[in-house]
């Protein structure tokens, strides 16, 4: 519905029935004059407000969104607002990465008797939104294509894993194979520069195992499909984090999986390799020394130094060897983790809010909705019932428009909040090279800051932060309404 | 090992509390802390500006802080609680951008974005020497002395600005004097007003308040009161006679700066501590210390392993 031109902006409120809706009622009873912009949607509890309702509203024309619930500890349902507080705070800090001013979204707590507070909240928030003006329309901004700077320094020397204990690994797998459905690892793909997942069921299959910087795929993605069957899996350090996260969420059980940990020396960023080799070429030969790879394609030699062409995640990797494993083929490397902004996110950080919106418009223009990102994600376990194309619930239009596509990415990022281990498979899988990992990284960063350096997939016993709460949050502070 | 620290002496250091200044310098010197006066310092605005105009008062402080920044200091020591209070208040108030803007208008140069942390000399010493480190450097333990510590009203309050431990019951001075070997009594009136601010208009009030402090110290059989504030010291020492009148008692209670007490323990000659400036004679204390020191086998310089 169009807003009253020149008079109002579109402000949507989600109010819990028990406290804030009552507070708004009390303000009415007290004839507390308020601006007329706010449209209140009544929900049973602030915990009912899925953050993506808010993203939906903001991407579709809302100029401001306000969520109000019971004061912490006053929740009619005892804990709904505790969960809401975590989720909404994550959302608030996430919004800027989309190019949406976080001031357009606020959440607050107003009790049923706090008429004056409610009046103050509505007036202040409405004034704030008016000061920001009409929200920019996503489909009206000019697309902007920018490239992340991938020149990074690794925390540890990267290599090609040439001297890894591959024969020993094969031996160990063969020894365990009889009790396992299969062992998941890597084999050569259609040429020497491409490896693909291998599902070894026989000793002959095991001989096909390869190890090296081309082993980019995260084999953990297949584990939930084997639920209830015992399988083996060969993991790099990063893959193991996905396994741990799956364990944390009871999506697989520990006794059903045997982890073979290999010490990873880094994997190649096939996106950048592809750029050098050319889009449609034939690889003639691959030669590997300790620190670099030489690929001959269409008769031309290309040398790739591991230090320059590793995947973004490898540079900041401090756990090249899985912490959790059953059979391990290396010693843990003593690397101090350093908190650094990943390159995709650094690019977005460097842009202004309008530029970020333009950036996503430009990127999403390429998206075909093939959902390779979703299906390559080891944590996307509902993929057969993803809300991306369901009608009940009907979250998304099937229109091929950039807004819907970005909305899907936001939904994906949000569903991964506190669960994403940053394996980067979503971005790697994207055939058209959309840097969607940045959205997950932003949520990851927010989660880390809010929840005491919480990192998904590091502790099988830890509760994912958005599935729990503290009555008193250490790092979430109520914002005053001054 | 010598360390250099930025230092704001404040006006009283050059006036009536020159003994505080002397002993501060002497103690720091003995501990290897070099106090560097910040260049071109001015009044902290404590009186009367802060009561009349917080912005002007803050501007005075900010200018000092700016000078400290220019001297590359990230920590600034001051002996006087009043200076400390004003400097810290100013830094706190400057967090409000509107306040900052108004103060900037009063200054030649806009205030620096980040100020050095202002702490008392007492905290400055304690940060560098914990009780053990201090005890190691004691040459003449204050063992025979029973001391009552008195912080005054300003040092620890308001708590959110001064950050000096429990605002009602600070214990830093006790730990330092204990390290110096003294017996320290748990003095309940350690933060209760001595009445100094009424020293001129309402002398009777001052006498009563000071009298109460002195009387309790006497009742608790303290040999001396140990203070950290020039105004408290003046009030309790210089006006002790008036207080005696008010309390109908004879106190003869020496009122030492904590730096003087520490100086004695560290073996600094009394002359370099300004002990002679005290109105109530403290020679008895010195005698006790000396007697104890000579009675025991005090380690001779250089003989320690």
């Amino acid at each position, binding site marked *: *519905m*169009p807003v009253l031109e020149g008079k109002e902006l579109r402000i949507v409120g989600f109010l819990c029935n028990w406290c804030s809706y009552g507070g708004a009622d009390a303000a009415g009873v007290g004839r507390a004059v308020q601006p007329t912009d706010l449209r209140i949607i009544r929900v049973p509890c602030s915990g009912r407000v899925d953050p993506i309702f808010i993203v939906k509203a903001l991407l579709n024309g809302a100029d401001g969104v306000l969520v109000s619930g019971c004061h912490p500890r006053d929740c009619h349902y005892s804990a709904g607002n505790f969960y809401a507080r975590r989720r909404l705070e994550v959302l608030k800090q996430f919004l800027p990465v989309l190019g949406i001013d976080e001031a357009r979204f606020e959440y607050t707590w107003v009790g049923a008797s706090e008429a004056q507070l409610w009046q103050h909240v509505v007036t202040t928030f409405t004034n704030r939104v008016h000061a920001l003006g009409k929200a920019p329309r996503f489909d009206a901004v000019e697309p902007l*294509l920018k*490239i*992340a700077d*991938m020149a990074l320094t690794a925390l540890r020397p990267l290599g090609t894993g040439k001297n890894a204990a591959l024969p020993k690994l094969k031996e160990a797998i063969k020894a365990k194979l009889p009790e396992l459905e299969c062992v998941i690892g890597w084999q050569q*793909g*259609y*040429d020497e520069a*491409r490896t*693909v*997942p*291998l*599902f070894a069921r026989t000793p002959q299959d095991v001989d096909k195992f390869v190890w090296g910087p081309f082993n980019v*795929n995260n084999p953990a*993605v*297949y584990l939930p499909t084997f639920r209830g069957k015992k399988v083996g899996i060969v993991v790099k350090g990063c893959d193991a984090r996905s396994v741990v996260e799956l364990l944390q969420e009871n999506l697989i059980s520990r006794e059903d999986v045997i982890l073979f940990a290999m010490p990873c020396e880094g994997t190649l*960023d096939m*996106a*950048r390799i*592809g*750029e050098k080799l050319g*889009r*449609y*070429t*034939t*690889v003639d030969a691959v030669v590997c020394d300790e620190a670099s790879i030489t690929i001959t394609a*269409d008769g031309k030699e290309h040398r790739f130094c591991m230090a320059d062409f590793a995947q973004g995640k490898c540079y900041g990797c401090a756990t090249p060897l899985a912490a959790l494993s059953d059979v391990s083929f290396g010693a843990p490397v003593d690397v101090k983790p350093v908190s650094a902004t990943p390159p995709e996110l650094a690019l977005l950080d460097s842009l202004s809010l309008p530029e970020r919106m333009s950036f996503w418009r*430009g*990127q999403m*223009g*390429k998206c*075909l*909705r*093939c*959902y*390779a990102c*979703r*299906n*390559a994600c080891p944590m996307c376990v509902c*993929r*057969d019932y993803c809300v991306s*194309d*369901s*009608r009940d619930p*009907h979250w998304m*239009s*099937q*229109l*091929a428009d950039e807004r819907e596509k970005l909305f899907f990415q936001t939904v994906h990022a949000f569903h991964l909040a506190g669960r994403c281990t940053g394996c980067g*498979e979503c971005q*790697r*899988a*994207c*055939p*058209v*090279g*959309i*840097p969607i990992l940045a959205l997950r990284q932003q949520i990851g960063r927010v989660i880390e800051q809010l929840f005491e350096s919480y990192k998904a997939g590091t502790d099988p016993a830890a509760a994912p932060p958005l599935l729990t709460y503290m009555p008193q949050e250490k790092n979430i502070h109520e914002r005053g309404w001054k | 090992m010598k360390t250099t620290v930025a230092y704001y002496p404040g006006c009283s250091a050059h006036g009536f509390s020159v003994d505080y200044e002397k002993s501060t310098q002497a103690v720091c010197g003995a501990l290897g802390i070099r106090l560097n006066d910040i260049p071109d310092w001015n009044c902290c605005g404590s009186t009367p500006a802060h009561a009349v105009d917080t912005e002007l008062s803050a501007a005075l402080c900010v200018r000092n802080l700016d000078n400290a920044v220019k001297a590359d200091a990230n920590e600034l020591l001051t002996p006087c609680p009043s200076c400390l209070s004003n400097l810290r208040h100013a830094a706190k108030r400057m967090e409000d951008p509107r306040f900052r803007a108004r103060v900037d208008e009063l200054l030649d140069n806009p205030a620096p974005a980040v100020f050095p942390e202002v702490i008392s000399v007492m905290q400055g010493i304690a940060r560098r020497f914990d009780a053990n480190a201090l005890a190691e450097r004691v040459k003449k333990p204050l063992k025979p002395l029973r001391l009552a510590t008195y912080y005054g009203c300003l040092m620890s309050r308001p708590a959110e600005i001064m950050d000096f431990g429990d605002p009602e019951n600070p214990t830093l001075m006790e730990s330092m004097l204990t390290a110096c070997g003294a017996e320290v009594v748990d003095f309940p009136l350690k933060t209760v007003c001595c009445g100094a601010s009424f020293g001129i208009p309402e002398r009777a009030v001052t006498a009563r308040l000071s009298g109460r402090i002195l009387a309790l110290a006497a009742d608790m059989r303290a040999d001396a009161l140990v203070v950290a504030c020039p105004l408290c010291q003046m009030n309790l020492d210089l006006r002790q006679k008036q207080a005696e009148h008010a309390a109908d008692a004879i106190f003869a209670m020496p009122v030492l700066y904590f730096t003087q007490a520490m100086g004695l323990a560290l073996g600094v000659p009394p002359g370099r501590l300004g002990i002679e400036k005290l109105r109530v004679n403290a020679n008895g204390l010195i005698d006790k210390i000396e007697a104890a020191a000579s009675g025991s086998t005090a380690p001779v310089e250089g003989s320690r392993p």
Partner: protein
Amino acid sequence: MNAIRFLPSDGLPALLSCLVKTGRRILAPVEKPAVKSSVVFEPWSEGKPLTLQKATVPAKEAVLPQCETLLSYRQTKNADTAALNLDDTPNAQPTVVFGARPCDACGYAVLDRPFLQGPFVDPYYRARREQLVVFTTTCGSGCATCFCHWLGGGPSSPEGSDVLMTEIEGGLVLQSVTDKGAELLNSMPPAAKLADGAPVFRQAEEARKKAWASLLPAPDIKSARQAIAGIFSDANFWQEQTDRCLSCGACTYFCPTCYCFNITDEGDGYEGGQGGRRLRSWDNCMSSQFTREASGHNPRTDKALRMRNRVSHKYSFYPENWGAASCSGCGRCVCNCPVYLDIRAIVLAAIKHAGDK
């Protein structure tokens, strides 16, 4: 009718300008810079840079958009009457696809059969297809994932194209291969910078021959149709072939010949709550939802069964119905697959497996 023209290297913008002036939308490959760059077809306008590289995404969009509105409605109500206005006009405009590759163009031929030549003609498809002219760049060589020649195509195969463009020294040779193409070339004004191409046509032919010669020998896959049909019920075979499949839609959405679609009615809230629309969007048989029935039952729950359908459709069912494979061998399903699942390998394995039996 045949037209052969020569376009000097710097003449591309001039030609495209003239094509735009005919009132046509030009879809041309545009490079999208990124860490992993891509080439996609986009409407061309004056001044926009384009590339003649083989695109990441085929130009299927020209006839079968990712999503199109089949119909929209709006309800008008007043106190006494209520009326429903329907609009089902196909969204179509005259279009030139400029810079497709033979494998892309071949895709149009594959799509034409079910959409135009079967018992039902799809009016939306037809409206766009009839107004489409395809300018195809012939390929200079094959690559690791190309296999058009396995399926009877090749680097300069004209199927589905209206004009073939071959790069020679100093420019492009444009050769019409249909009347539609010839007409358009002939109608180009001098401003299009087109010169007579006959004198240099030999050079173009040389280039094409060279491209053909660069291809690796193709295996014989004539028996694929029977072989695949023969092992239809061999679940183990399909299971093994699809272990690593992630069930995403990259293979089908990047395929120039895949045409499965989904129809969604989106009613509420559109047009100010007074209307709605029926959308047709790409769908893909690799998704479990593709065959999920309203009851919740799904005949193809397993990805192996879905892969069987995809391969069978391309190499068995479609050929059975239309006499040719619904695959142009462009190889995009292989190189865009996150796990490089190789349909060639499956077809060859099927032939071998059937032979072993």
